[in-house]
């Protein structure tokens, strides 16, 4: 693995929206060639952190440096040449074909009057072949499945040819095999020297593929390190607010995470009976006589 030098440096930043800071005093470094998984419960501020680092949300305090330069000094164009960003949910209006979408990734490499040349198309093709969607090049974005769609968008970010990639939940909504494939693609990219920071929810996959994991929760970073160091019962229970068990599968060596069930909750059960329209005393459907 190529690891030389810090490419992303985050120091003491607080991020969030005007009246509601989500994260406070967050600091970490990312080295070249690392694949960093950003995990944590919903609403913990993973996306907020990524957006702040990419400059989409204002940096309230602190310092973000990318390749030794403060992000405030970047122009929109410079930033796009350094960092590729895949947002959580992309809505594509109109029937653009997948190759037209991937071509959009070439935008930062063109002057405003230029049009894409053969070289740009070659890169588009290479990116789409790498993510395995070149055979869909002429299909519209509406005509492909969720897994294919995500790989097209990944190809678009790749076509930007940036050394750093920020991916916000690239695997959400995909089936297990597609998820694993996205992780594997990212891992291979890191092996050739790209740096990937991705928000993920699949803890087991993160543990298998990521070289480092950042656990976000309680308004800051709870843990930062390898999967073994971060994915402990104590850390996860604290971050997610439920009691968590972590088990290492003896067959595969993979980590499995699940919650420990609380005791039977009578009030919830009664509510459920009411919703289902079942009489708790007789266990019969209420108003059943009226139905012939």
């Amino acid at each position, binding site marked *: 693995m190529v690891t030389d030098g810090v490419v992303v440096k985050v120091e003491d930043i607080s991020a969030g929206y005007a009246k509601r800071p989500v994260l406070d005093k967050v600091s970490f470094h990312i080295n070249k060639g690392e694949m960093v998984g950003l995990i944590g419960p919903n609403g913990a501020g993973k996306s907020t952190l990524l957006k702040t680092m*990419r400059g*989409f949300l204002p940096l309230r305090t602190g310092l973000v440096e990318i390749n030794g330069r403060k992000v405030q000094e970047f*122009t*929109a*164009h*410079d*930033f*796009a*040449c350094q960092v*590729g*960003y*895949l*947002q959580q949910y*992309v*809505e*594509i*209006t*109109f*029937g*653009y*074909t997948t190759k*037209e*979408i991937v071509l*959009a*990734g070439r*935008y*930062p490499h*063109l002057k*405003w*009057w230029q*049009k894409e040349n053969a070289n740009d198309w070659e890169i588009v093709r290479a990116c789409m072949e790498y993510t395995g969607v070149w055979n869909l090049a002429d299909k*519209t974005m*509406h005509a492909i499945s969720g897994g294919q769609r995500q790989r097209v968008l990944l190809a678009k*970010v790749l076509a*930007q040819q940036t050394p750093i990639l920020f991916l916000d939940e690239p695997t959400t909504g995909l089936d297990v095999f597609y998820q694993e494939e996205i992780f594997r693609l990212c891992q291979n990219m890191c092996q050739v020297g790209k740096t990937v920071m991705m928000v993920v929810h699949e803890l087991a996959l993160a543990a298998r593929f990521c070289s480092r994991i950042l656990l976000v929760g309680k308004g800051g970073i709870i843990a930062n390190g390898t999967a073994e160091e971060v994915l402990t019962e104590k850390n996860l229970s604290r971050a997610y607010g439920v009691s968590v068990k972590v088990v290492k599968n003896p067959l595969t060596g993979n980590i499995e995470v699940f919650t420990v069930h609380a005791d039977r909750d009578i009030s919830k059960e009664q509510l459920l009976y009411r919703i289902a329209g079942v009489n708790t005393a007789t266990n019969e459907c209420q108003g059943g006589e009226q139905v012939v």
Partner: protein
Amino acid sequence: MKKMTGFFVLLAACFLIISLISLSWGQIDIPFKNILAMFCHELHLPFFADVLFTPEQQAVLYYIRMPRTFVGLLVGAGLGASGAVMQGIFSNPLADPGIIGVSSGASVGAVIAIALGFTEISMLYMPLFAFCGSLFAVTLTVLLAMRHGRIPVMTLLLSGVVVGMLLGALTSGILTMMNEQKMQQYLFWTIGGLDYRRWEHVLLAVGPICGGITIMLLMARHLNILVLGDVEAKAVGMKVMPFRLFLLTMASMITATGVCVSGNIGFVGLVVPHMMRMLVGPDHRRLLPASIIAGGTFLVFCDTIGRIILPPLEIRVGVMTAVIGTPYFLYLLRRTRNLSR
């Protein structure tokens, strides 16, 4: 790629044929060959030298038909292009140039010009007032939508609707205080028409519309990025705000100019880009040229139909575009179901 070339050749052929028909048909028929003979004669070309034409035909062609057709082509092309651009800016297939208050602003301007009696002084006052009115309306819409230096698309659409309503009420208010003759004048203006257009109208429209269209064509690739949405455009390094505002200004200017010289003409800006998107796809480098040619053709086509359907009466082109556009649009809607395709 070959298919595209074929399509554009076909479109250009339609454009030429319909322009020719529009020059030829009317109360006084001028046969095609006489028109071509007149053109060749003017341009000193050695074709059709044996075809004779009367001075009357020449006068009708030069002073009545040609300005009318030219205004139609210009306005139609402008509306087609600005419709495509608006739909792109808002990533919304239902946006059209009227949606951010251009037309309602123009109406207010026009009604003020009529109420103050300026229209009797010179025919240029009403276009001027209409133009100022639309620029005022667009500025108001944009200012209302701007918050912390950002313009969220949805807020912009809503402020456009609100400004439109406000100005509509203002127009109605002024109308109720006017006498019948002035009211008729307004009514006549508000239903867009191409009748009695003169070379002055062509001159008035040609600069802003051709200039605006050229700039839009140059920006077509950038528009493709803008359509993907704010975050996506920023992620590839586009300065979204200046681009959006600039294109918005261009589209408003073209529409305002169009409204100036021919009154409110609906549907062209909505239907034409939509139709073209289904035929050539959403890439603005093909969509914009197609919408420009098709917009001009469609408007002149509607005008010609309106002229020959009930002679000697003329149905105004603003009515015809809606009458022809609505069923076709509904057909498209039913056929595709998914509007965003």
